[in-house]
């Protein structure tokens, strides 16, 4: 018998579960195959490319990103998860999503869900703790630097975020 665990969580604002899943089931498989949310992408399976990143909100309200290919679904039990499907409000894209499409940031788009989640968290963080304008580029490099994109050379992803940060006075402060 496969050892199993019963899990429940909130995904994109909706409660899911309880579901009985194998202890070893990766979170990405839970999202893709149990919940049918295929926006979260499998890239390497080792947690290196970061295509599979989602946003996780813990019980204390703190939010972070997590890789779903190397973390089991059981480790997300009780948490609030936001996947790429959870950002747009109907036909209205989030600011990060809109910035990415406006800048032609991606090409094949397979890595985009990971970038959307990571960049969204970065913007949320800046709202809490604005940065000097001369640190914008370094901040983007740190936040998005682990995400692999094979098509774009990263330029337009980064330029989109720089423009978004520069145009929102809440995200920066005087040096």
């Amino acid at each position: 018998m496969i050892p199993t665990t019963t899990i429940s969580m909130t995904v994109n604002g909706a409660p899911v579960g309880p579901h009985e899943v194998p202890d070893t089931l990766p979170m990405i498989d839970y999202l893709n195959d149990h919940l049918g949310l295929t926006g979260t992408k499998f890239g390497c399976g080792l947690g290196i490319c970061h295509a599979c990143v989602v946003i996780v909100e813990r019980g204390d309200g703190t939010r972070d990103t997590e890789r779903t290919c190397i973390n089991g679904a059981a480790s997300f039990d009780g948490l609030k998860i936001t996947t790429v499907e959870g950002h747009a409000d109907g036909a209205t894209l989030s600011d990060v999503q809109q910035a990415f499409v406006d800048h032609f940031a991606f090409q094949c788009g397979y890595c985009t869900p990971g970038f959307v989640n990571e960049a969204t968290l970065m913007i949320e963080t800046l709202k809490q703790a604005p940065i000097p304008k001369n640190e914008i580029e370094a901040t983007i490099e740190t936040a998005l630097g682990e995400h692999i994109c094979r098509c774009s050379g990263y330029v337009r992803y980064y330029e989109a975020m720089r423009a978004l940060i520069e145009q929102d006075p809440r995200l920066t402060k005087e040096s």
Partner: protein
Amino acid sequence: MDSERRQAAVPENGAGCDAPRRTGSHAGMNRRQVLKASVAGGITIALSPLPALSAFTASLQPEEKGWRKDGDRNVRYRVDGFAKVTGRKIYARDYRAADMDSWPDETSHAAIVFAQEAAKIYTGLDLSALGEDLVPDIVITAKDLHAADIAATGFFATDLLCAEGQTPAYLGQPTAILIWHDFDRFTSARLRMQSAGSIASFGATGTPAQSGPYGANRFTRVAGSNPEGPDVYSPVKDGWVGPARYQKGEAPVWSPAKPDGQGPGRATAYGEAMRKALADGTAGQVFGITFETQSVDQVFMEPESGLAWYDASKKTLNAVLGVQSPQAILEGIAGMVAKADTAHEVRHIEGHFGYLGGGFGGKDHTIVPLYVALAALFAGGRPVRLALNRFEQFQFGLKRHAITADMQIGVEPQTGMFTTFTADLDCNGGGRANFSASVADVAATGAPSIYYFPKSDVTTVAKSSRGVCAGSMRGYGTLQTMTATECLVDDIARGLKIDPFALRRRNMLQTGALNMTGNPASGMIRTKEVLDRLEQASLWQNRDRDKTVFEWANSGYTYAVGMACVMKDFGTGADGVLSSVSLTTDGVIEITGNVIEMGTGITTALAARAARRLGQLATTVRTDEPAHWDPLQLVSSGNPWGISQADQDEASKNPRWVPQISSPASASIGAHVNAAAVDQAAEVIRRFGLWPAAQAIWSEGQLGGQQAGEFVTYADLRWSDGALTGAGMEPIPLPRLAARAHEMGLVTGAMLHAFNRWSWATAEFDIDGTRWRGPVDALAVQKGSADWQLLDRTSVAFPSAAMERVGVNYYSACGAVVALAVGRNDGSVQVLGVHQVLECGSQLVPELVSGNSEGGIAMGIGYALHEDLPLYEDGPGNGTWNLNRYHVPKAADVPVWNMTLEVLDPLSETDPPKGMGEVVMIPVVPAILNGLREATGHRFTKLPVTQDDIRKAL
């Protein structure tokens, strides 16, 4: 953007008789003939887009922030932008059986067992690592395929599964397919298999069956007194030359030299004479390089996968796939099951195709879909999903060819003029035939890059090995050879103390001059402008100042700048495309094209192309739909790359015949060929629908209305803010024009086929009493209704069969200046800035062009400095490779904030768009190497150049 290619021209001067060229493993039978035969076996094929893709309509786009606005000729963002940024199901990997209408809901899951050995005998599966609870529900072996009379044929011919008792033909050869009907058991079993390393067992030492070289050719040219021709001898003039035989099954042996003969011996004689002149100094000062390039993985972000269901009651195989070459893949599956027993009989294949999460060539004629089909055929009527993980993708996915290039250039030392170019190319194609023979040819014909050589002799061979299969990848062999050429030319500049730009200008191929195959390239060659602009780049102009500033601020680092410039072909020499454009009564423009979107933006580019003729962007762009092209009733026969003139003349008497119906997304043909078909369809609507509708509106009223006072011609027409005007006439918005065209029964839709063999097929049609000739060979029109009326061509002119000898005709040029810093103590390299100059005709969507350039630069940096795969036992075929040990450039490896692109303005607004997805990757590689030489004084001749290599050189 990237490249299938080219069933290169068949040697016609006798070499083909005693030295059959091999493409795939079927000597004497070319790829296309085999594939067509498989379809002729009675299996019908249908291609469909996936459900989400077929609905890329305005309804999917947010109204307030859409990718287009009515009347706007500029794309606001990609057609697929909203879908991709919101995570919609658009990739084949996203689909499960429950997503497909009329399929069973439950999905079974399959995994391939790969051989991690190719030097031992395969003894069978050891399932003990799985435990009793995770034993697969179905195991498919070579015995099963044999019993069912299922075998890969034609282009894909290979032993699909290694049989017990055999030595695998190559590292990573599949040995079995396992299927689990329960997802949780499947994922658990996979984890155990991964922990176990492999469940394929091996015994005594064995010898893999070597299939011999995949192909070889010799390209020899001797110019006459003029660069523009006629030549004394060339592939175009005298035919392509293949080897007489292969020595020990490996090295090509060329026909004995016969200076006065008519056969391939002339090429040998001229080639040997050139090499002797280089050796004895009569060809000038000689510079040479032996350059080794590595095997690399495509690392498209979406690993290959597929979903398939065999409906035995209807003898139908349904498949969801993500490939660059849908038609070829379905034909390959059809060939595989052509003789299958009753239990696995297939009469119809229904293929659904998704957007690709990257392709780069690696999803062109990939064999993975055949395994998806196999899984379904043996799954007991259940839909099956087979999705490679990244380890498996490394183990089995198509690789870039490792090539060794031995080059020499003779130069007149006083003038710096090149006299002679020789090269010998050795390409490692791995253990399964794919495009290796063709890649070897393109590597050869691309080797001269931007230069003119009065004499050239290039031999090329694609060899088999026990390595993982190599195939098409962005650049298609030219990345390797052009890099070597650009390093060698930089060495010549240093050796002769000539400015590198000046040396290149002195020796560049001029418009009208003949290239290495003996062909004048299409259109004007603008290399000089590219070089001029590149030389003015601040990274180059200010390099001495920048070096001083940088090294003052960064002690321990050496700053250097390198440059390179290349000219890359696009097209395959037999490109067939389909397009339809329809105008609704309210002016909505709907496009359908036989295109696959792998990320380059072809669907967006097609939408933009419509604006040139119709004043605004298309509203919808659909990929292939089943039966959409039936109104054209097209038929095809023969090999479009090797057909004889007599056969073509005979076949073309049938007004439904075309040499090639459709082509893969490859060879950077999207902007040029696919977009041209849309352009012509839109032109037919403008000429025979909108123009008469406009005349009718402008002549309304007393005494001929507003038009009576001017002589308005078709040439006067202009679009202004989405309205048609000209010669002072009232601008008429497209919806009003469309409504009038529908009301009058004028042409409101055009569906056409176009064919390009280094030149366009042209045909004449009678449209509403007017003879119209265009670069199309089949045409149907709509006249105010959804029905298509097929028009017979009244005359047709296909490019002559001899055009195939051209080998390369369409070029785009790109140069790069790279600034880098080398750590003097640790040998580290940081690319600090890249400036590229590109010539690509008319840009369809500038943001897509620059995006391709930026991605190409990143991929080039990876190729030059990071990416490397051992070819054999330590390489990816052993199943242990993933991104933890294969370094794909991250943003920190790329000068994200210092990457710039200049694109030359077109000569006029009528310049055709040129393929540019491949060329933008190439120059950055030799520019880095030339920068490293500047920084270290050492010429690195083996890729990648690692930190350790540099440290040792320092």
